[in-house]
């Protein structure tokens, strides 16, 4: 099993969710994060105090999947999240030892 972690633009969340649902992914955990990267932040200005905010609001998705589905998941995310503009985000894939469904005690692939 793998854990696919994606950092995307917040307003793309709905589209990515839909794309994942279409390929049968049933579970996702989402976190609101701040991203520092190549994409430039914005300027804020308060009574003459101007400063550059170099983080940007991003959304982090965690999706646990069986190995065979990793590519499909990556394609779904990429397809929905890509705008071609800097800051579209990253996908990280790590290997996942075990998964357990708390409610039933089911393990691994069954637990997804």
């Amino acid at each position, binding site marked *: 099993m793998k854990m696919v972690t994606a950092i995307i633009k917040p307003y793309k969340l709905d589209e990515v969710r839909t794309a994942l649902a279409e390929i049968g992914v049933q579970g996702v955990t989402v976190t609101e994060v701040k991203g520092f990267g190549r994409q430039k932040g914005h300027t*804020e*200005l*308060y*009574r*003459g*105090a*101007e*400063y550059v*905010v170099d983080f940007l609001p991003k959304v982090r998705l965690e999706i646990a999947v069986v190995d065979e589905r990793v590519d499909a998941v990556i394609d779904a995310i990429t397809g929905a999240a890509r705008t071609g503009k800097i800051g579209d985000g990253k996908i990280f894939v790590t290997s996942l030892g075990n998964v357990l469904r708390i409610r039933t005690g089911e393990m691994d692939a069954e637990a997804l």
Partner: protein
Amino acid sequence: MTSTAPRRLAPPLLLFLTGTAARAADAPAPDSGDTAWMIVATALVLLMTIPGLSLFYAGMVRMKNALSVLMQCFAITALVSVLWLAYGYSLAFDTTGMAAGEFGRASIIGGFSKAFMAGMRVDSLVGTIPESVFATFQLTFAIITPALIVGAFAERMKFTALLAFVASWFTLVYLPITHMVWSGAGALLWDLGVLDFAGGTVVHINAGSAGLVAAVVLGRRLGYPGTAMPPHSLALTVIGASLLWVGWFGFNAGSAVAANGTAGMAMLVTQMATAAAALAWMSTEWAVHGKPSVLGIVTGAVAGLVAITPASGTAGPAGALLIGVAAGVLCFFAAARLKRAFGYDDSLDVFGVHAVGGIVGALLTGVCAGTLGGVGLPEGVSIGRQVLVQAASVLFTLAWSGLLSFGILKLLDRTIGLRVTREQELEGLDLALHDERAYDH
């Protein structure tokens, strides 16, 4: 000279007339319309501090210090009320021993004859309103003045030090200045002929001067100016500024101490100066920085409110526009540039908005009373002379408040200490001093 001028419209004029000298004349009668207005004006000025100013300030600090600012404003409201009852009203408005043009102790500060509201009965009058209403109305000014200073040392002062500072400053600075400007003939600045209808000198320059000194004595916040310290909730700040605007009708129009044409005109010019200053700040910021901001426009409005305050009983609508534009532009540069240039950390621009706005207003009061639709200066007083009188009063107030504030703060620093520890400042004053958090989201 001034005692016969019909244009001298400072609030306590009626007090003076009916309270001491003029008692022989026709007996004053209560007026239910004036009373109705002054009760409401009192409520409006209280609204300016809680929740108005409290929110204006609390929104601008970081989340970890939001409650500490609300706490300070609320505690000041309570503390000053009780001190006002005990001796404040008396020291400010007891006119025993005063006589026009004669200098003495009573020209500086009142006596204790009205301590604990001694002698005030349900039917005691000041002019056409109950004395109880007059005393409570004046109290709301005594509350907001020290509350304004809070902005200068926000996010780093100990709460014990705040209480001690406010009690001392109220007694040694606020009460004498109020007495000197507003208590009537025989008082130092009244006799000088200063025009300060609703408190440009008494409230704003007074608080602004203390604020600058406090910012310098306490030193900068950790991380200032390198670290970004954005307002944690501009929504709260806009609510606060809006309530300040609305409540200021009580402040300025209430200073007529009657529901009459002077009050009405004070309301109109207040509205116009405020609007003009808001637009002026917005435009200046837009020109200088490329975008207009909501923090900017509301701060401009407050600058306009401050500047029209001393002039609100004497200026006409056109004068109000001039005062508003001047305040909007000059306060913008004071807040955005001056403090950066000198490097002091007046957290919420008490000096830049209240002292600078107050000075602009005080000087232009002299100009706009005599021209641009103003009510006119007392006979024999030229615009130039009035401006000089205004300038003298400004300098006197800056000095009195600045020097005494410095003394009080230094004394407190050496005794109980002014500033929280580094750890407390990092953790935030809300948890460190009050065991509370503003939000549990």
